């Protein structure tokens, strides 16, 4: 039997640009053309003012660690416990769930507000996930 796999996202027409972005090593966000609100997850209108004209742009990929758990049990398929499930606050404002790589999965190493930068983890030829690592320097 094949190893259980990590849950794979299935893009929709409204989110395809995001997953095209991660495949091209870009973290893409959207900004409202009317009120300049930057938001996530993707949708083709502004959730702050309902304006339908929005612009997709490449985010800096910089953020900080907002909060997390270190999951011990049960582990999700494709994961080996213990592993951190993190929420990253992006420099542009929105927050997103992700994982922290290149870092021990311990409370000591995972300090709230530590600086992070985006990295990309290819799952298959369709999906690349945005993950984060401690920022250099």
């Amino acid at each position, binding site marked *: 039997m094949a190893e259980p796999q990590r849950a794979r996202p299935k893009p929709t027409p409204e989110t395809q640009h995001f997953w095209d972005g991660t495949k091209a090593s870009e973290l893409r966000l959207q900004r409202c053309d009317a009120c300049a609100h930057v938001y996530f997850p993707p949708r083709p209108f502004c959730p702050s003012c309902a304006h339908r004209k929005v612009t997709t742009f490449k985010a800096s990929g910089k953020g900080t660690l907002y909060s997390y758990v270190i999951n*011990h049990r049960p582990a999700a398929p494709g994961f080996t416990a213990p592993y951190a499930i993190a929420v990253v606050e992006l420099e542009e404002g929105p927050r997103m769930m992700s994982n922290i790589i290149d870092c021990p999965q311990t409370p000591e190493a995972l300090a*709230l507000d530590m600086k992070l930068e985006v990295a990309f983890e290819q799952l298959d030829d369709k999906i690349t996930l945005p993950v984060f690592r401690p920022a250099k320097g």
Partner: protein
Amino acid sequence: MRRNQVAVVGAAETTELGVIPNMSQIQLHADAALNAIADAGLKLSDIDGFATAVESPQQVCHYLGIKPTWVDGTSVGGCSFMLHVRHAAAAIEAGLCKTVLITHAESGKSMIGKLPRSIPADSLQGQFEAPFGVYGPPSMFPIPVLRFMKTYGITHEQLSMVAVVQREWAAKNPRAMMKDPITVADVLNSRMIAYPFRLLQCCLVTDGGGALILTSADRAKDFPRKPVYIMGTGESVETPMVSQMETFNSSRAFKVAGPLAFKEAGIAHKDVDHLMIYDAFAHLPLFGLGDLGFMPHEETGKFIADGNTRPGGKLPLNTNGGGLSYMHSGMYGMYALQESVRQMRGIAPAQVPNAKISVCHGVGGMFAASGTIIFTNER
């Protein structure tokens, strides 16, 4: 909504609670419903309004043989039943129905006839949360805790005291699943589930159900039980994605629902004799005490650790033992409502002497939804 116009006249849980391997989920609904109907001295044919969550109203109505003229299938997680109470009170006042039955049941432990919960890969949760290893409530609900602790200076010991104090209440309740006393050290040495939370800070997983019957306050005086009036109500939703909450320092849904209920009831916090805050995990009472306006968030950990919510304390909280020690089938809100009704009737196993006002606050999903009901036994 006008206060004290609608009352609970029937309330019961399933005959058994805990592990019920000989009953399917739909039968647990029926068992709770039949107990509540007997409690109210009614016949099934008297019920003309019906509400439930997860299971569809048509499923349960057909199984029970109810012919309703009003139904509500609001299903927003464990606080759905608080919302049902609010909606039912409005429907009764509007004349859409006279006698409403609300049921909950879940074969949460034995998993017999339980509907599957799945996250579609093309939903927003499926795309932007599931791939990062969330797997069930223990991996999601505690995600805000570390931020909350840092912001307000809450300690691991204070978050352990939530479990310790609730076990003190459970010890007084013969139907509680876990009754043996525990200490902060026991909590901090229990198995790690999802840091910072350990086993004793996570809710139980059990089977059970409960049902409520509501009617107008004018009719309520003719029923066998002491009426418990609906004094104030509130509800709201925020987001199904815990990562997308506006802040981890409070729950927006709590902050909308709670104050709405207090305003409607026309009461101040000092008037509250008894409090239930849905405790799927140990941080929820802290969020609730702060978001409902009982005190600033930074005081909530110390308030509980100092013993203010324990038996004999000034604000008795989760007096059945809560989701941490009494029972938690998956959608605990119904059991919190049942305990508030018992306290208002004066028949709770750990009865708060002379309690006249009970606040019952529920959460749905991982801070996704909220409902608050304020009860009183004086019209």
